[in-house]
């Protein structure tokens, strides 16, 4: 029988809070992390709101503080989440055999800091004031910091986490847009299942609160330009959904072999039930119009968990306030049955993209552990929706929750987390 995998630590950094318990509390209370962009001046740009993490100080979380200057914000957020998770799981020096401690991170297309490159290209203009590669090759390169490239390589999320925690085990970095961190958690569970590690630090983080990221989102017509998103949120699944709001954040889970966790008497939040991935084949939308890739991933996760549709009590949806939310609602109803309770945390957190799946996986584990599910900020169920969505949190004993993440490019990922039992 394959080795079972449990969650024994959670670390969260979100627009709601820097800390796991604080984040989940705020989510339950119906808080919203969206406000005016303060990280930089957006001027006349039509999208003026984002879900920012305020007063984030990476050095609070790091042993090796010198490393901060070679970390883009995505990387700092991931390392910080890993630090909270490691502390939560009680992974101190000596608890984990370094060769049995691995890292699996989901990363985005990490954008460079504009100032660094801008200051270098600005000295490389020709007579017509155009950027000149000839000058860049000669003078521009020297104007950049020596370790410039390292700041933005996606696998640096892994590298920094591995160095901080001396994790010498299996090490993979998944780069699948918005599905990155859920896929990273699913892949990490497989590594433990097949016996190649006892612990995996798994998750991911991303900041979309960056001028280049805002431009890219705006160009694909996804970004919300509504004036009321700060007060009402992007309203996933609603007829008057407002579009996607850029967010930043991430989460890291400590996955552990169940036998290993029991032997060391670790506190267990939940067990990994099942995992599935697929691809819908579309390019720009978050989910294909026929919902096929989404349906396939959910079906695979259920089968992998050896569960029936009725066993899953609620879904953490990918919905972020875009037209394709309606397709996801149909797919959830088709796979799990009509009226299934559905939560869209992007309503409060904005879209943290590569961080989003890990944030929802963490929320699912906390919901099972605490016996209460958060609501969806700013959303009340609409009569013709085939699923149930509510702004209110709900108490109950939850045995199995499903998490969806889908992405532009076509990939889909679903995971089932279930209540941990003694046997």
């Amino acid at each position, binding site marked *: 029988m394959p080795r079972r995998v449990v969650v024994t630590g959670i670390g969260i950094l979100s627009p709601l809070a820097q800390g796991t318990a604080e984040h989940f509390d705020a989510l339950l209370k119906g808080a919203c992390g969206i406000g005016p962009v303060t990280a930089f001046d957006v001027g006349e740009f039509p999208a003026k709101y984002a879900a920012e993490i305020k007063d984030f100080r990476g050095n609070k979380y790091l042993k090796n503080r010198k490393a901060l200057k070679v970390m883009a914000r995505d990387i700092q957020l991931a390392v910080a989440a890993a630090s909270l998770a490691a502390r939560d799981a009680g992974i101190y020096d000596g608890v984990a055999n370094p060769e049995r401690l691995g890292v699996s991170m989901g990363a985005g297309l990490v954008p460079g800091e504009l100032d660094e490159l801008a200051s270098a290209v600005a000295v490389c203009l020709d007579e017509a004031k155009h950027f000149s590669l000839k000058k860049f090759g000669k003078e521009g390169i020297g104007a950049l910091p020596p370790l410039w490239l390292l700041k933005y390589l996606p*696998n640096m999320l*892994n590298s920094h986490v591995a160095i901080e925690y001396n994790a010498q085990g299996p090490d993979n970095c998944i780069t699948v847009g918005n599905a990155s961190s859920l896929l990273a958690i699913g892949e990490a569970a497989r590594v433990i299942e097949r016996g190649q590690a006892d612990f995996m630090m798994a998750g991911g983080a991303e900041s979309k609160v960056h001028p280049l990221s805002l431009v890219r989102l705006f*160009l*694909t017509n996804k970004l919300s330009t509504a004036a009321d998103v700060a007060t009402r949120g992007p309203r996933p699944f609603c007829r008057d959904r407002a579009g996607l709001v850029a967010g930043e954040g991430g989460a890291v889970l400590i996955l552990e072999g169940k036998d290993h966790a029991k032997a060391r008497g670790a506190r267990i939040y939940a067990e990994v039930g099942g995992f599935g991935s697929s*691809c819908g084949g579309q390019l720009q939308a978050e989910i294909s119009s026929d919902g096929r890739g989404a349906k396939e991933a959910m079906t695979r996760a259920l089968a992998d968990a050896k569960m029936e549709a009725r066993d899953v009590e609620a879904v953490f949806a990918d919905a972020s306030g875009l037209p394709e939310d309606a397709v996801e609602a149909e797919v959830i109803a088709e796979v799990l049955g009509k009226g299934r309770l559905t939560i869209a945390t992007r309503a409060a957190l904005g879209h943290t993209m590569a961080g989003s799946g890990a944030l929802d996986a963490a929320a699912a584990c906390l919901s099972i552990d605490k016996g209460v599910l958060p609501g969806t900020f700013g959303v009340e169920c609409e009569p013709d929706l085939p699923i149930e969505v509510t702004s209110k949190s709900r108490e109950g004993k939850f045995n199995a929750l499903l998490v969806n993440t889908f992405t532009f490019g*076509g990939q889909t990922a679903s995971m089932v987390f279930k209540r941990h039992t003694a046997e």
Partner: protein
Amino acid sequence: MGKDGRRVVITGMGLVSPMASNVEDTWKGMLEGRSAVDYTTIYDASTFPTTFSGQVRDESVISRFESDPELKYSGRNLRFALVAGQQAFEDAGLHEAEINKERFGVYLGAGEGPPDWMTFGNLLAEAWTGAKTDTAAFLKNAVTRMNALRELFQEPNIAAGLLARRFSALGPNMTCLTACAASGQAMGEAGHIIRRGDADVMLSGGAHSMIHPYSQAGFNLLTALSQRNDDPKRASRPFDKERDGFVLAEGSAMLVLEELYHAEARGVRIYGELMGYGTTGDAYRLTDMHPEGRSAKSAMRMALEDAGIEPKDVDYINAHGTSTAVNDKIETVAIKEVFGEHAKRIPVSSIKSMVGHLIASAGAIEAIACLLAIRDQILPPTTNYEHPDPELDLDYVPNVARKAAVSIALSNSFGFGGQNVALVFGRYPL
């Protein structure tokens, strides 16, 4: 071996390399010891510290997508991926009408696409105030001058998405980007997906092009690239005493991984078996390998254990061999420790001496070299090996391809940042 004894074999291969836009011509070039490295022409690199690269020279691979309304905005990496993926699919004798779409997945080690560097550079220059970036001006100008698809196509997951769309593959679909280890890692993980029973066929491999001004600048700043500008063809010289850095290259290598009985039932040619996979993290430093190569060693050991073989069973090691001072030294140390008394006997070569370093695609093109070495019983050489380094004393198959009995080959891929991968390939049947 996986659940219910499921084993993984390779039944198709496709390749766009600096040498040629197909598998056989690239292989022929390698066996002849030809260098595919030359001066960079994708952009004007004449003033850069390094002026040459392993650039794909076959313009037809690029131009064939120019009339496609979407793909004309795609970067070189995606065009390479689509061409190599199609080749691999056809080489495996797969047909869209017959394949079980739910049991067919894609797992790539794929890189980000080249940025729209002139547009981006000009936008940044115009927004620079002399002290900081005027972000409001950047945003205002960028939304009118950047192209939505050109930006979207830079995302690393697009190659695997486009290939899934092309073949209607509904199985597991993933992309990893562990730098230079990425496509080796992708193949190892894809193999596990088949072994576990989650798919019967996986298209796996890599696609990447970092030959653009910003990446080149980044690597030059790290002093990782060879600067032998007067003699590009002799610049990549793994294990040679006068090596001075790696040669940045680009391309895509794709392999069809298939469950053994599935392949046998189709009666398709089998190149070999993917027997073992090891993955570890160095957890040491961002820029340097651990001095004793601790996780390079553990990756090789994990792959051998996974394959159920002993060091003595390995007939050939396809090295990561980048031609950097540190990698080649530490890789040699690690091989000597893992293989012990057998290390001196086992031939070790690096095809990067001829095609350069394809970064995320490196592991996959090297997998192809291993499988063809097994098929043809011949080892590709390490070219430009002229000055033995006293510390580096393995048999590097210097300069000339060599006939050899090869049943089992091990291939290393060590990622910049510390992700290390080793794969073991075997002749099938052994």
